[in-house]
């Protein structure tokens, strides 16, 4: 049977990808950031996951304003890195897992989550930067990926509660898949940041860290947090954090924190990163 063994959460700042792609990761500005992922790269190479359900948001790359799905699941065999205006990132093609993706789609729709099915889609920095942080710069990604795109660009995103419950539905779907697979769920985006207007540059370290504490130990209550608190406390783009609740919902109620990292700044953004293992 397939099983979800762990969750990974990380910010997905585009400048991190650019720093890596342009060979600047050893510069003093970036070194402490990448140092926070050294453990993670070793951990993931030991864990050898087969598949990651990678929760992220598209940044006006695959989805224009013509169609804005709240939740969309990528069911194709491959996803190309998107051209976001400066050419595609020089990273490998992302290989999907069409069988498990289709199984999850069917299962969670039957659990009342109306996912949009995507059979052709390019993936932007929201998905590829977390891959780079966890795997570095390989010729081929060592894992298959099921992209789960969440709308957090056009307000309102789904509620934290809805995201947390979707995570639980994904857990049930994976648990009922016959093939023997080691599956991780990744949540990406955040933490506090605002990229627009005179308030740009907002960072809230205390709030971010309290949020991380609650994500680990009290996710059920955290999922009740209304959007307005994210907007006020963590900036207009900080609301991306609801995506981490999908990852958390897919894990056990009690988890082991095997890694936790927080760093300011990466460009305009506070970077948070946790790795949680199912305990049992």
């Amino acid at each position, binding site marked *: 049977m397939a099983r979800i063994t762990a969750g990974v959460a990380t910010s997905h700042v585009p*400048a991190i990808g650019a720093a890596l792609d342009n060979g600047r990761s050893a510069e003093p500005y970036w070194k402490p950031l990448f140092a926070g992922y050294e453990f993670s790269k070793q951990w993931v190479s030991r864990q050898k996951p087969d598949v990651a359900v990678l929760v992220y948001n598209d940044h*006006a790359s695959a989805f224009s304003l013509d169609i804005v799905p709240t939740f969309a699941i990528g069911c194709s065999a491959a996803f190309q890195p998107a051209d976001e205006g400066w050419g595609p990132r020089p990273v490998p093609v992302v290989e999907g897992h069409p069988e498990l993706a289709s199984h999850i789609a069917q299962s969670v729709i039957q659990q009342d989550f109306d996912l949009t099915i995507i059979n052709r889609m390019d993936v932007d920095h929201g998905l590829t930067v977390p891959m780079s942080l966890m795997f570095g710069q390989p010729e081929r990604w060592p894992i298959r990926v099921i992209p789960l795109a969440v709308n957090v660009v056009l307000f309102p995103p789904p509620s934290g509660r809805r995201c947390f419950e979707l995570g639980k539905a994904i857990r049930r779907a994976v648990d009922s898949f016959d093939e023997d697979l080691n599956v991780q769920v990744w949540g990406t985006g955040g933490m506090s940041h605002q*990229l627009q207007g005179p*308030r740009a540059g907002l*960072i809230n370290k205390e709030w971010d860290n309290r949020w991380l504490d609650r994500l680990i130990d009290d996710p059920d209550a955290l999922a009740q947090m209304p959007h307005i608190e994210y907007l006020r406390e963590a900036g207009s783009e900080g609301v991306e954090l609801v995506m981490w609740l999908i990852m958390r919902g897919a894990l056990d109620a009690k988890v082991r924190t095997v890694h936790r990292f927080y760093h300011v*700044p990466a460009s305009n953004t506070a970077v948070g990163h946790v790795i949680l293992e199912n305990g049992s």
Partner: protein
Amino acid sequence: MALEKPYSDIPGTVIFDADQARKGYHLNQFCMSLMKPDNRTRFKRDERAYVDEWPMSEDQKRGVLARDYNRMIELGGNIYFLAKLFSTDGKSFQYTAATMTGMTQEAYATMMLNGGRSPEGNRCVGETSARAGCEKEGK
């Protein structure tokens, strides 16, 4: 009944909601078109001619040509769409964010290195101390 917008009192912030998206539809779709190299080339060759191909308002077109990001956001632009425009110019998110704050690039970068802009006094217009005056309700 009008949509509830508890976020309208957040200073220096425009939330990209359904109303903004409706106003900014063509502006944002213009930005999306710059994901294609051929379109970037045509835009760079004659910006005015290229924006005239889009049914944007004259104010939106002026905002684009002036690279006035606060104005574009006010007129319905969203930062992730506008990113295609500043990427076409070879500019970064940090460069563009700094221009919107009225700070110099250097001052903005220094602020970020020192931990970013504090939320204190920035949660809502009229916030006095520790969120006392900010509405917490809403979805």
